[in-house]
């Protein structure tokens, strides 16, 4: 190929190169980087200016309500709800995943049906359902279907509004957790459970000591995501009046009409909580990834 132009620039003598003082090339500066950086800084300046100059943000009010007792109480409720709903979700989700993975045809179909239903309807609708469960079943108890109750209780007493919120959010969450856990179980090579079988470990012991701990590596990052989205999703329960963080601030602004500063208060606290969760997640990931990290083979 005589028309090949790839090497048609000046030839250089190696000796000339060795003779120059500095053997390191002058680094190229990306031209776009400086311009892009300047644009972003200017935009950021605008944002700060708007935040400071627009009186509608009303920072004094934000400061006044940031540590308000009813806001702090709302935070506590939001955290309790998140933890309780995630616990329900994780326990039910693991059971569903195991049923789907290894149960007989009927358990497997039941688990699939569950996931289909709870993933297919909005969580807001599910929470409202649980909130209004009392109108559907005024009393719950034991008895023959279609006949009289032998023992029964008032539904509103058995399922107080907080429990309704936990069940609504938790049962919905279980459907997502089930899929995450199933993916995690599938990520563990079949040889691992075969080796456990060959050693005489039973099904449960194999799951508990061999498969689940290794599935954790694949499970923790998405579960961390779920935790964070659950923390925010708890705000939908304001529709049934549980008294979470968002409900606390909406109640305050329904009295003083300062919606924006109070929504900022809520946002600040949601950000604080999700940041903490992110840190916990990073720690857990590190812990379960330990045996696979390249450095530090022994502990």
């Amino acid at each position, binding site marked *: 190929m005589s028309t090949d132009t790839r090497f048609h620039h000046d030839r250089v003598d190696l000796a000339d190169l060795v003779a120059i003082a500095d053997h390191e090339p002058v680094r190229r500066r990306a031209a776009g980087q400086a311009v892009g950086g300047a644009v972003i800084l200017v935009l950021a300046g605008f944002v700060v200016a708007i935040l400071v100059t627009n009186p509608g943000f009303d920072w004094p009010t934000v400061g006044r309500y940031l540590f308000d007792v009813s806001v702090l109480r709302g935070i506590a409720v939001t955290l309790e709800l998140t933890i309780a709903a995630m616990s329900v979700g994780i326990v039910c989700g693991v059971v569903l995943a195991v049923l789907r993975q290894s149960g007989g045809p009927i358990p497997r179909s039941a688990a699939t049906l569950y996931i289909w239903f709870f993933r297919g309807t909005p969580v807001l609708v599910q929470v409202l359902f649980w909130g209004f469960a009392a109108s559907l079943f005024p009393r719950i108890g034991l008895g023959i279907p279609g006949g009289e109750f032998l023992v029964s209780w008032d539904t509103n007493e058995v399922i107080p509004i907080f429990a309704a919120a936990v069940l609504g959010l938790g049962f919905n969450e279980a459907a997502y957790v089930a899929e995450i856990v199933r993916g995690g179980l599938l990520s563990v*090579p079949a040889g691992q459970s075969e*080796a456990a*079988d*060959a*050693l*005489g470990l039973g099904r449960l012991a194999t799951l508990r*000591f*061999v498969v689940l701990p290794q599935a954790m590596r694949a499970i923790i990052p998405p579960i961390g995501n779920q935790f964070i989205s659950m923390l925010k999703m708890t705000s939908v329960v304001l529709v049934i009046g549980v008294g979470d963080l968002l409900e606390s601030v909406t109640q305050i602004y329904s009295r003083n009409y300062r919606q924006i500063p109070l929504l900022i208060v809520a946002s600040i606290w949601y950000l604080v909580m999700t940041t903490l969760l992110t840190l916990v997640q990073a720690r857990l990931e590190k812990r379960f990834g330990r045996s*696979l990290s390249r450095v530090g083979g*022994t502990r």
Partner: protein
Amino acid sequence: MTDVATGPVIQAHDVHKSFGNLEVLKGIDLTVERGEVVCLLGASGSGKSTFLRCVNHLETVDRGFILVDGRLIGSDLVRGRLHEARPSVVTERRSRIGMVFQQFNLFGHMTVLENVILAPMRVKKEPREVAVERAVRLLRRVGLGNKQDSYPAHLSGGQQQRVAIARALAMEPTLMLFDEPTSALDPELVGEVLDVMRDLAASGMTMMVVTHEMGFARQVAGTAVFMSEGRVVEQGPPEKVIGAPDHERTRAFLGKVL
């Protein structure tokens, strides 16, 4: 050992196994005596690994039976019929058969020591000190006394396979099954694993080994079994089966691997 067993360790009779329409085992009869080392030879797809896996019931047998120490593993004889046994029962019976896999299958989230003590503690309910003491002894025996706190990912393939052997031995098996134990290893690591297996054979362990290592088979095996297309084509002393085979198919196979 609680009972001093006598008689053959493996008695297989007319073992059939199909995967879908593919008949992998077409009637295997085989006896392995106590303390004997049997090497299963044959091309891939000949059914040798499947047969090995049938012995500890990792694969279910479609027809025929396999007795280990005179006992059925995956089924029970009830009023003149074979009935499939409960999984928990199979699990318990299987714990007396050690198995070593081609891909080692060490538990990646556990240290070497934890790998070896897991089954003794969880299956035999041994106290930790007892399990650890035996594990340390076994790891020394396979030349890895200094690696007990390492994770599998930081060991070479040969070291991992030696840990896998120690892990199987920790259950004090009466029979050891090896499924191509050196096939996944770099050539320079094969020797260290074969050395451990040779020691084990010399100590009187009953072993059934699926292997392509003809040198090992010649040197260590009491019996070499050549399989082809789901049948035992010939069996006998390795010097006979490998050195002067009767059967045309054995000669063709050996011509390719030697």
